Structure formats: C-alpha cells, structure tokens
C-alpha cells in the first residue's frame, strides 16, 4: 500500500514523538472471556482460523514540538490503539516509539475512581497513580476541587455521585497536570452543556500550553481548526499524511467509496453470505 504524502516538507525543531514501524498485535486466543476449559478444548481440537489480529501495522510518523497532529479514520482503524501506545499503556508488538516529555492522555477521564472513597480521596489516589508526589498533589488539590465544583459532595463516597458529577471530577483531575505532550481522544462529549463549554475552554488552554498534541476525533472542524498536520488511518495502516484539509478530503472520499461498496454489498448479500466480521479496535 502506498502512502499518499501530500506535504512532506521540512519540519524543524526537536522531536516530541517518534514512531517507527509500529505494529500492535492482539492475540485472539486470550480474550476477557477465556476460561481454562476453552484452552484445553483448543489444545485437544485445534479449531484453526486466525489467532492474531493486527490493530496497527507499519505505522511510522514523527511529531515535532509545536505541532498538533490529528489522527482520523473510520471506526476500528486503530486510532485509539495508537493513542494507547503513545501513552505507554500498550506496548508495541513491532517497532519502536519514543516520546520525549511528560505525556498526559485525556483517556484518563474517570480513571482512579474508587466508588467507596470520597472525592478528595479519589483525587489523592489518582495523583498517586499518575506518579505525582505528595506535595504536588496537595498543591493542586484546591484547584481540582474548585474546578470540579462539587460543593459538599467532595467529601462523600463517589457512589452517591451522578454521572455528570463523576465526569466533572474526572475531567478536573485529568486536566490538572500540565503535560508536555497531550493526547486527546474525543473527550469533549461529557457533562451538561454548561460544563461542555467550560471544558472546551480548558482543553484549548492545555492545547496552547502543550509542546505537542495528538488528537483523535471524528469532528473534522476540530481538525481544521486546531491541527496543523493529520494522518489518516485505515485498517491499522497510515494511508495518508499531510495538510489537515487535504487528508480530510481523502478521508471523505474513502468513506464515500466505502458507503457505495457497502450498498453494493448489501445488494449482493441477498444472494451470498456476508464475509467474516471484522474486529473493532
């Protein structure tokens, strides 16, 4: 597959993220539903078929400081997996990724949440998980509490919170760290309308501060507005890279084509059985 390089250009500055020949393989033999019984039966009677699935394949790109990169693509293209790799949550099966600087991912929304602990205790616990020192957490605590705006609820166990309150606390914790590299995964759809406006402002503030940004979104207005580069992922591979507007154009063209193919396949389905289902990443 050839990559459509629209604008290779010379990009100056220190490298923030360098990914080379990234590949992420999922084993289909172990899933969350695996029991010992299944493994025994598989040993006795091998079923054959695919045992692995590549969520990312031969992904190579570079983000220099000052850049914000948009990652777009259809569902199941591997966008979220890519962010997980950049956050260090998933290790690549092939290739190397080098990240220079503190990464904060707003994948973190809602992380560190223990239903039986109070809001305050949850903030402290989340801080410890993120690796912040005790003083650092205490220093940020008032700001987080104020931004979450939970009133007296900050002292009661989380299980009494509404989902909006929980989202507010999560967002407040996740955005309290000042990262060098910010990873965003479609985070703006939480909370009520008021909070959405407030949170968008906060994200933009982080975007301004961060030295580099990687954003995964389906909202193309974000891409054109805040990103100066884009890559298009399809089936785990980079198919286009360059100017946001041009990559978006390719993306839209491809989705039109897929829609047309699907419609055609729909007609064929009346006669033939559908092909094997694809896994969602």
């Amino acid at each position, binding site marked *: 597959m050839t990559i459509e390089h629209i604008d290779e250009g010379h990009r100056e500055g220190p490298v923030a993220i360098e990914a080379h020949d990234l*590949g992420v393989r*999922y*084993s289909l033999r*172990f*899933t*969350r*539903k*695996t*029991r*010992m*019984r299944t*493994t025994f039966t598989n040993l006795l009677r091998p079923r054959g078929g695919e045992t692995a699935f590549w969520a990312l394949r031969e992904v190579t790109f570079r983000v220099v400081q000052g850049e914000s990169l948009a990652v777009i693509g259809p569902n199941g293209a591997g966008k979220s997996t890519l962010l*997980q*790799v950049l*956050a*260090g*949550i*998933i*290790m*690549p*099966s*092939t*290739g*190397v*990724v*080098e*990240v*220079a*600087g*503190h990464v904060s*991912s707003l*994948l*973190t*929304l*809602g*992380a*560190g*949440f*223990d239903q*039986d*602990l109070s809001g305050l*205790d949850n903030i*402290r*616990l989340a801080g*410890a*998980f*993120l*690796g*912040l*020192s*005790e003083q*650092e957490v205490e220093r940020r605590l008032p700001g987080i509490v104020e931004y979450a705006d939970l009133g007296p609820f900050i002292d009661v166990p989380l299980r009494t919170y509404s989902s909006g309150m929980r989202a507010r606390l999560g967002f407040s914790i996740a955005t309290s760290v000042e990262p*060098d590299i910010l990873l965003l995964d479609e985070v703006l759809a939480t909370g009520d309308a008021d909070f959405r406006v407030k949170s968008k402002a906060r994200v933009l503030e982080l975007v301004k501060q961060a030295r580099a940004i990687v954003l995964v979104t389906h909202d193309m207005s974000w891409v054109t507005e805040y990103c100066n580069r884009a890559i298009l992922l399809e089936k785990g591979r980079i198919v286009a890279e360059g100017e946001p507007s041009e990559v978006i154009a390719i993306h839209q063209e491809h989705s039109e084509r897929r829609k047309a193919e699907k419609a055609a396949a729909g007609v064929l389905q009346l006669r033939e059985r559908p092909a094997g289902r694809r896994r969602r990443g």
Partner: protein
Amino acid sequence: MTSASEVPASFRSSAVRPGPVGLIREGFVDILSRRRLIRYLVQADLKKSGADTLLGNIWWVIDPLLQMVVYVVLVTLIFQRKQPDYPIFIFSAILPWKWFTGSVGDGVYSVVLSERLIKQIQFPKIVLPISSAMSGITNFAFGLIPLSVLMIVFYPHRISIWLLTIPLIGFVQLLFTLPVVVAVSSSNVFYRDIGNLMRHVLRLWWYLSPGLYGVALILEVTKELPLVGTLMLLNPFTILFTAYRDAIYSGQSPDWMSLFILAVASLLLLVVAMWYFKRVEPAFAKVL
C-alpha cells in the same frame, strides 16, 4: 520524595523486552519507586472495609473467634478428639490462615478489577497484587486482640516469652504470601476461572495442613505413606502453623531452621513470580 514526579519524563517503548534478569530488576524497582501508591491502595482498602459498617473493625475481632467456636464444636464434640486447650490450639492456626486466604482471595482479583485503570493510564501493575497482600496484615494484627484476650483470661499458664516471636513468623508468612498473590493475580487475567479454582484449592490446602490437627497426625501418615507424609511436611503451612503453635500454644522456641529455609525458598519463588508477572504484564491492557 523530592522530585515532582515518580515517573520518568520520557520513555521509549518497543517490542524488545529486557531479559529475565532485567525484568525481575524492573519489577522490584517498580515496587520501591511506587511504595506511596501501594500505601494509598492499602489505606483505601482499609477505609472501605472499615468505613461501611460501624462494627467494621469489631468484626475483624469477632470473626476469628466465631470460626474458632465452629471448629471447637466440630472437633471436640462431633469428632470427640482430645487435645488439651483445643480453643487456643485451633486459634493459633485460624489467625494466620485467615490472613493468607484473605490476601489470596482479594489478590486474585486485584488486577482484573482494575481493568479500567489499566486501560487508561500507564503504571506498574505489580502494585496491585502487592497492595492486596499488604492489606491483609492489618486483618492479622486485629486478630491479635482476641488472641491476647483468650490468653490472658482463659490460658494464662500458656503465656510465654515466645509470643514475642509472632511478628517474625508473620514476616516469613508474608514473604510466602507475596509470590502466591503475584502469580495468581496475573494468571486470572488470562483464565478468568482461576479465582473460582483458588477457593477450592485453598479449602483443600487448609485440610491438608496441620491446622485442625497437630503435626503428630502427619508423622503417623508418614509411617504408612512415606511420600504423602513427606509432601505434607514440606507444605509451607506445616512449617508456619507449627511455628505459630510453638510460640502460642506450647510456649517453646519455633524451629528457626525450617523458618529460615521457608523464607529463602519464598524469596526465590517471589523472583520467579515476579519474572512471570513482568513477562505477561504488557498483555494486560490488551486482554482486559
């Protein structure tokens, strides 16, 4: 901690993983550098188990006593066994066993239950089983309260200086518990029925260990079935129960040699378990 952050500012992650020695070292460094997180997790655990009920902490005291009553009824009334001062004899085994089963029972789910966290942030997963193994200690410590009451009120003639060795024996037990918890917590990610299996394994383990009965019975088994008897004698809980009983029930010095061997063997097991854990750790985020 002087630095603002306990995590490195930059990282490189690739398909190339360090060798066994590197992995094991990494695991121990993870534990040391994240001991504050472990402390928080233990505290959170305690808050939860105590805060919910007013009687929360009191139950930790009553629970082993009730269990003792059950076994006393079973063994002295139904099986008609004659063992002098049986209540304290069985209590000295119930106490450490409750600690062990509690730690393993919680620990086996420690990784699986943190699924959301594991998929959202990068942190050394080893802190999860380690903190469940650690939270058991307080449970054990609370159990020492009814023990002292029993000793002072009913069995003052059994009080001896050797009671002071309990923390040392407990330390050896902790060393043995750690590798077990580390191993089962990571296996449970790949085989979700390890948790179920463990419940039955633990029950069998209890009956095969000299908890309800004394080591004398195992020695009798050894006469007829040397292999089975020897295996039962090699059981870590044969060593531990005997040591606790020496200190609490018989008022004599525990067998230091066997405790020392168990401690060394546990450390070796911990190294192996750590290697296994670090080897499979990258797969957690994918499988969960």
